[in-house]
């Protein structure tokens, strides 16, 4: 049991902080948010410095490192940070289960900042636990033909490759085992329908997708047949921790801004930060951030140590995201209030942090579904009397 970061982790934290402080520009962020554009130049720069997907380097996962980077990035800017961090979304699947050729062709390009990646799991009207996936991939010789619909695909129009959860059938229709299949954007029959005008995280595009007789080589299958659902759930645990770290960063960034503002601004002849209720609001925010942070780091640590052996506790990731998102919405909301009229103005940034945190809180995997993950394991099966 050790709560101290290792030397190498402190260095990563410092590098991330310095990069974000040096490169993230307030006006750029305001503009990209307004126009719903992705910070392409910054992403490439971060990738060149090894800050994109740095948890996918070496042996096994190092999600704790990713948490540290996400916190720093999103504290400096919620939208720039979260969009750059999401650029390599789903690369974990390639890293953990992809064969050498997939890794060489795609993972490397993702980590080098040449293409964005993503996962396409959820389907319209589907169960949040992904148990009822209907997208199919029919296997004929060395090819797979995909048909189906996916919704709310993060990175939408920008991603160069999609990791699609589908059921692989043989030509006679037998099989139907869940698999992950990598589909390149340029493949014929891939339709991407962007959903524009988002509430928050506006630098991360989202789209609905349709696959119409999309032919991909069988070698694009990620991992063994039948492992799709397990891999998807593993990825979602990783994503839950990554998102928890992002919203934690947003909470920290909002806290820093409201602290700075209320220490300076005087009303009724005293700094707003000197009022008892303000002081206690800050104490309350600090406590919540601390709790969510411990949980997030524990969940990351557990995944790093145990996921490869299939022994990680998926409830930790769910708890971490649930608590961190609640915390972030609370802290960003309080920050808007503490800045008063200024908090409502785009120029003071906290309203954007608030929209970003809220967006992450409500998009899958979220809320009731996260509670179900925890409850399912805790309560187990109840035997009929």
């Amino acid at each position, binding site marked *: 049991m050790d709560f101290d970061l290792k030397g190498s982790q402190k260095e990563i934290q410092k590098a991330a902080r310095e990069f974000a402080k040096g490169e993230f520009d307030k006006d750029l962020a*305001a503009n990209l948010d307004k126009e719903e554009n992705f910070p392409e130049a910054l992403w490439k720069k971060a990738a060149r410095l090894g800050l994109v997907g740095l948890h996918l380097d070496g042996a096994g996962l190092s999600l704790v490192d990713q948490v540290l980077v996400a916190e720093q990035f999103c504290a400096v800017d919620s939208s720039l940070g979260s969009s750059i961090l999401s650029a390599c979304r789903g690369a974990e699947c390639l890293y953990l289960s992809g064969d050498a050729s997939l890794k060489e062709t795609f993972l490397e390009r993702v980590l080098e900042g040449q293409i964005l990646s993503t996962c396409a799991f959820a389907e319209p*009207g*589907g*169960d*949040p*636990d992904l*148990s*009822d996936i209907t997208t199919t991939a029919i296997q004929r010789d060395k090819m797979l033909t995909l048909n189906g619909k996916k*919704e*709310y695909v993060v990175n939408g129009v920008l991603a160069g490759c999609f990791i699609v959860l589908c059921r692989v059938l043989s030509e006679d229709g037998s099989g139907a085992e869940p698999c992950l299949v990598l589909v390149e954007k340029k493949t014929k029959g891939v339709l991407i329908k962007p*959903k524009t*005008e*988002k*509430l*928050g*995280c506006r630098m991360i595009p*989202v789209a609905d997708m349709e696959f119409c007789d999309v032919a991909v080589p069988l070698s694009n299958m990620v991992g063994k047949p039948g492992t799709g659902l397990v891999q998807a759930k593993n990825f979602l645990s990783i994503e839950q921790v990554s998102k928890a770290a992002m919203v934690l960063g947003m909470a920290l960034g909002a806290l820093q801004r409201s602290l700075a503002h209320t220490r300076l601004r005087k*009303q*009724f002849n005293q700094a707003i930060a000197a009022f008892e*209720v303000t002081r206690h609001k800050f104490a309350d925010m600090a406590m919540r951030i601390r709790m969510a942070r411990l949980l997030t780091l524990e969940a990351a640590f557990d995944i790093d140590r145990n996921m490869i052996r299939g022994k990680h506790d998926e409830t930790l990731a769910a708890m971490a995201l649930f608590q961190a998102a609640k915390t972030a*919405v609370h802290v960003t*909301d309080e920050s*808007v*209030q503490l800045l*008063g*009229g200024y*908090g*409502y*103005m*785009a*120029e003071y940034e906290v*309203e954007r942090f*608030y*929209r970003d945190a*809220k*967006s992450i*809180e*409500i*998009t*899958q995997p*979220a*809320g*009731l579904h996260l*509670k179900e993950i925890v409850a399912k394991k805790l309560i187990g099966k109840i035997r009929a009397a």
Partner: protein
Amino acid sequence: MEILKFSKSHLDFQERLKTFMDREVVPNIETWEKEKKVPKSVWKKMGENKFLCPSLPAEYGGIGGDFLHSVIVIKELARTNHNGLAAFIHSDIVVPYIESYGSVDLKQKYLPLCVSGDMITAVAMTEPDAGSDLAAMTTTAVEKGDHVVINGAKTFISNGVNCDLAVLAAKDPKEKNPHKAVSLYLVESKTPRFKKGEPLEKMGWKSQDTAELFFNDCMIPKQNRLGKKGAGFKMLMAKLQQERLVCVVSAVFFCENMLEWTIGYLKEKKRGKKLAIHSQAARFALVEMATQAKMARVFMEKLVSEHMKKKDVIIETSMGKYYTTDLVKRTSLRCLELIGDYGSLEECPIARTFRDTRVMSIFAGTNEIMKEIIARFTLS
């Protein structure tokens, strides 16, 4: 549970207004939200149809209605789910200053134009360094002969870009007691050296032309003062009951609208084998929110009814302002959670309601100020 009784003529007024909103307002909202203001022409049309200042008497062109007409306007504006055309700020917050404190001449000159929509009004109180602490304002008004010279800057002024007439709070620099230093003046926007800023970029109220106002040796006639010199603070305090009541009424309607929409959405939304509305957790959440909204509604109606009897309900109104604006925020946050992914898109109406209603616990006195007022009156 209804406390307020609407007459046939109220209901006719509401029907006319509904039709007007559906024709003249709803189809244009997306454009207005992008343009960061509503066109003056829609204000004019509101005036032509007698929807502005409905409580003013016929001598000024009004319909001689009551505060229930205002409640109806607030309700129908809430139904459009936008706040650009903030008619209640004009009708129920600014114009009452002219009606209550203006000289006969000022009333005859300006009130008919306020009713007709030829003049849009704004109230200029808040300053960059004087928000909650109004007494810290630094805008000055120096009376010189027949004129008053104004210097200073105001911020977060609703209807700021569109306004033709502002009720301005400014201090006499010679008066040291801040509570006796403030006077109110009517300033026409065409007055030389009165400048308006661009609409401010905000989290919500996107179509509302909230702006900064600047006065640089701006000269107005002395007759444009409202009420007695130095009585500004008293007048502001007297009018805040209605201003805050408007917030309460609006917040309650936004809560009700959000719940109605969210319930409709969850009834249609499939999540795996079942409809989202069949989730017990979602149902309990909705029931809790509906209960809170109902209790708020009853309290709001009681406040309106007391206010209409001219009773002093400043404490209860402050309680209502704090509770309902906090409730509308919590309701928006919770509805978005139940809606899920779709709530993260602007096409979901609750996304806008969330952005728009967030300001309600900040403006017209922050909720922290509400609690200070309530504490001062009830605990001392």
